[in-house]
């Protein structure tokens, strides 16, 4: 091939050289101005696709971090409330133990009862607390107070109105963080173990299972006394004031001048003319009372049996008569959804029996029960009261345990959330760095490129100016 340069060829090669270098300069300037290496996807489709993918991951990470942040707020709020709840239950326990001290007067106990009631109110406040206008412990039912009061048979009870669903937020592609604790887990978890009777009346659990939550009162009513009495004895006031139920043996010893009901304290027969001779109270070992009229007492010995008729009730209004032979008497109360099976054989005295469905009394009702008993609303003697307070101790400890377990769970999740926040933060920084590496211009390199392109351009301009200016005409004369 012969080489035959022409002026036009030189010009066009010069032109493309100038264009190419100018384009390089423009590109470098664009990169410097925006700080980005990839301005359009086509600048580096591979890099841009990767940068976009990093961007999406980064968007996800930021999304998860935002969720984590709000989740941690909720978890921390839950934790502080649970901590305080735990403290309230500890304080209640102290008050309860104080109340079991026999030297305390009823008035002293009433003061304790007031304190417990205040603690109960605070506990309810905590359990019904809101964060940003949303109830914290209602599960996903955040728009209503989770623990609501209802009065059944004159007793206020707290029931859980929330649901069992925990709120969750997404904190990873396939991982979720539970941000709230459905309140029943902490305050009203159930660990059913059957009904227990405080033992005042002698009523016992029947053979069938029972159904109920919390506690209920079993009312044993004295419906009249029947007795075939001798030695001139009579029932005072027709037996209306008696509290004994079932058949008891009455022994009047004319020689020793004593009277005894079952294994109760042996009492001296009141002398004629004494103030209580017409209404002398004999008590058996369980505190069941028989009112005897000794006014016409002949002084003879007498032994026989006295029987108190009885009926039972769960609500204090509708009563079922018993004959003390039922081993599995079924009592149903629709209002409180209680089905109780009672063994009536050992029922001895009138009274209000506290039946606790063990493991089902929620924290608030436990505190209410403790306050009621400290205030002695059922007017019990100290022994019976002490037994009841002792029974509450079990429920109180169980509730405390539930609060602590819940607190542990919340704390663990909060810790997990904190760790995750840190990990995601690092991941975000890494992704950001990776994306920046791909997408952002390395200013040093770009500046170098720019100056190189500039130098080349100048070189091209200079040489071509020189070359183009030469022509044969310059030398033809």
């Amino acid at each position, binding site marked *: 091939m012969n080489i035959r340069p022409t*002026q036009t*060829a030189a010009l066009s090669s010069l032109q493309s050289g100038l264009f190419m270098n100018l384009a390089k300069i423009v590109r470098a300037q664009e990169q410097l101005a925006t700080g980005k290496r990839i301005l359009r*996807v086509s600048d580096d489709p591979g890099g841009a696709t990767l940068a976009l993918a990093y961007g999406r991951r980064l968007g996800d990470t930021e999304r998860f971090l935002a969720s984590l942040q709000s989740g941690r707020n909720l978890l921390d709020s839950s934790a502080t409330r649970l901590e305080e709840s735990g403290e309230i239950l500890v304080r209640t326990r102290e008050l309860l133990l104080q109340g079991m001290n026999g030297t305390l007067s009823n008035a002293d106990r009433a003061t304790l009862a007031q304190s417990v009631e205040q603690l109960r109110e605070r506990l309810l406040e905590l359990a019904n607390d809101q964060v940003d206008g949303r109830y914290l412990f209602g*599960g*996903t039912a955040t728009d209503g107070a989770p623990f609501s009061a209802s009065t059944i048979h004159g007793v206020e009870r707290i029931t859980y109105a929330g649901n*069992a*669903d925990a709120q*969750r937020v*997404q904190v990873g592609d396939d991982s979720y963080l539970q941000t709230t604790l459905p309140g029943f887990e902490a305050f009203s978890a159930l660990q059913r173990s059957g009904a227990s009777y405080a033992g005042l009346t002698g009523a016992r659990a029947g053979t069938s299972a029972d159904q109920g939550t919390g506690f209920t009162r079993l009312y044993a009513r004295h419906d009249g006394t029947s007795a075939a009495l001798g030695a001139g004895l009579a029932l005072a006031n027709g037996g209306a004031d008696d509290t004994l139920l079932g058949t008891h043996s009455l022994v009047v010893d004319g020689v020793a001048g004593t009277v005894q009901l079952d294994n109760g304290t042996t009492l001296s027969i009141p002398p004629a003319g004494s103030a209580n001779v017409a209404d002398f109270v004999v008590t058996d070992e369980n505190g069941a009372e028989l009112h005897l009229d000794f006014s016409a007492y002949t002084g003879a010995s007498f032994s026989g049996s006295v029987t108190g008729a009885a009926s039972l009730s769960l609500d204090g209004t509708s009563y079922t008569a018993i004959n003390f032979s039922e081993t599995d008497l079924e009592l149903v109360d629709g209002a409180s959804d209680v089905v109780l099976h009672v063994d009536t054989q050992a029922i001895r005295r009138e009274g209000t029996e506290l039946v606790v469905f063990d493991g089902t009394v929620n924290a608030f009702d436990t505190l209410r029960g403790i306050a009621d008993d400290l205030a002695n609303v059922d007017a019990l003697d100290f022994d019976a009261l002490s037994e009841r307070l002792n029974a509450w101790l079990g429920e109180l400890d169980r509730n405390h345990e539930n609060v602590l377990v819940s607190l542990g769970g919340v704390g663990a999740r909060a810790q997990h959330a904190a760790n995750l926040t840190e990990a995601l933060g690092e991941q975000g920084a890494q992704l950001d760095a990776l994306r920046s590496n791909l997408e952002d211009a390395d200013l040093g390199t770009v500046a170098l490129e720019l100056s190189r392109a500039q130098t080349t351009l100048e070189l091209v301009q200079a040489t071509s100016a020189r070359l183009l200016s030469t022509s044969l005409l310059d030398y033809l004369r």
Partner: protein
Amino acid sequence: MSLLGFDIGVRALLTAQSRLETIGHNLANATTPGYSRQSVLVSASTPQTIGALLQGGGVQADAIQRAFDAVLNGRLSQQMSALGRLDASGSTLMQIETLLGGMSETGPAKLLEKMFASFSALATAADDGVLRSSAVQSASAFAGRVNQLAGDVQSLKHTVASQLEIGARRVNELASRISVLNREIVNAEASSSAANDLRDQREQALRELSSHVDVRAIEDERGGMRVLVGGRMLVSPSATATMSVAHDPTDDSVSLRIGGEEVEVLGGQIGGLLSMSRSFLPKLAGDVDAFARNLIYEVNRAHSTGVALDGPFQALRASHALVDQDGDGNVDDELLAGAGLPFEIEDGELVVNVTDRDSGDIETHRIAIDTQRTTVGDFLDALEALPHLSAQLDARGTLRVQADAGFGFDFAKRLESAPDSIGSFGGGHASLGSGDGPFALAAGDTLDFVGNSGTFSVAFQAGDFTNIGAATADEVARVLNADSTFAANGLVASAVGGALVVQTVGVGATQSFTLQGGTAAGAFGWSAGQVVNGSDVVATPTISGAYTGSANGALVFRPNIDGTIGTTAGLVVEVFDANGNKLTDLQVGAGYQPGDELEVVDGVKVAFAFGHLSATDGDVLRVELTGDSDSARLLPALGLNNFFDGLDASTLAVRGTLLADPDQLAASVTGASGDASNLLRMLEAAQGELAALDGNSLDERLAQIVGDVGFELQTTNDAYQAEQLALDSLEARREQISGVNTDEELVALLEQQQAYAAAAQFLRVVSEITNELLDIV
């Protein structure tokens, strides 16, 4: 000799003159585009024989010739076509890239990310009005951006079409120019030698034509040129055809025609534009549409089975109409799967939960959908048959579902809270249940009862059953309930799954009836003389937990013996699946505390209240389990409880109801204010890998669309640069051959000037010699 001398001198002068003129012509056209350097071909004239001598006759000019390489010129034309094509594609692609806004903060990809972020934020506080509104708004902004993209792609198609029109007009101009030159060249060359300058012009026109379309040029022996485009004659020596752009309004496609016949143009700017308009833009529009369609379907599928903030729905209207296909004016007879719904439905079920707003009790119903059999009418009837629900089609064929006052409905995956609605499991009614059907009855078989008004008998007839030998519980219950004596005796029959249950209407221990016997008794597993009593205590079972299974199913509970819950030793509730396979035993006898929750299977828990169960009386309880509440995929097809309306990128929009009232966003499954689980499902669906997108997720697909355009553009740009380099080198080669080097011409000028002077001198000498001779004479 003297004449010869003059001849030689004159020819030498003329030849030198011609060469000088050609040099002048070359110098004058040194910068004319397409000009080919010319030169005069000279030769020694034919010698004459004078005596024994063969005397030279001087010089003669034979022809003026172009420095020209036909093969190179052909290649240049091809190169122009290739470059034109890349140029047109590249500039269109550049516009698309800008539209897609790949790296920009307002591109669709970024807006999709923002939508996910706002959904995620709402999940942290599902009842927050501001977050709800921002979730709906961000989705709407994204939808608007996708609409805009679809519109931009559409208008780009129109731009390309009008560019094609302009291109075709230029092609026609060039074709007629070539045609004119053809005639001139043929005329000129018929009379004299090569029409160099006309040919240069024709080649220049052809080269420009090549940058628009890929051409094949054939020159005939007379110098006329035929130009073929895509195998069709554009220019023939005798005629010129016209190129036109045809626009098909049905599918918005364009095609190119020459003389009314369609031609395939691959190269040149027109080729590039055509390929953009025919393949790249439709593919891009298709990709964006497929993306939008999948987004709509997936998000709606999750959303439609959710529940709004204010709980179950009172009324819902579908977005997509059911259409009469056979034109008989009746939609009801169409198959549901073939009634013009925009998305496929499948064989499966639709679960409808009906909630009693007062009690909060949820009853779950299932409607089976068979794509081969279920008609629109069947489906409407099935909806209508659900208690407290009504369904109609309006004039346009869109479905409207409505609940009675005090009731609500939804399609969520929920557990029935009170599954024993009829009290067939330890309930208060006197209740007698059978085993699972079907039951082998024979025509005339009877069931004999003693009810509260005495003994009576119900007979079964073949006409009451699809197949009396395999009677279903539903059919038997229908026959019994239709019997007036049966009803008059205070009895009612129901089907619990496959089992038949006969009960007293009243509850309590005083309720009683006797199955006296009858020929059908055996088929139900009942023995004659069976006395059934009611109870005062109701062993209401309560279901809780969350079903974790993915398939729809049922749990059937039956006691193993007669006994009292929490009391009778060895009392077990046996749990079966819907097909009668035993799953587990629940110990509910002595030691069980009534009310305690027992794990059944797959996250479902059950608690039994105190009460009495009877295996003899066939106590049975069925709990429907919903794994997929819309396995028929019916809701997104109907557009019931949609999140997105629309079918493709141009119609994508957030449902108007949601925009007007963001509380209608179905963030929850339960309707609880803090329940965001459905929102999380929507996020999962929108971010999950989809088989329809080759295993990509929606956001990945969007990035792919952006990336694909980027790759295409980069490839085109790279190819353009490479082809440009090739063109430059071809043109340089052409310049080497055909270009005018002024220095060279100037040297030749000097040479010819001297030749001219020499010839003139020769003539003078010849003239002097001749004069001397004449003086002698």
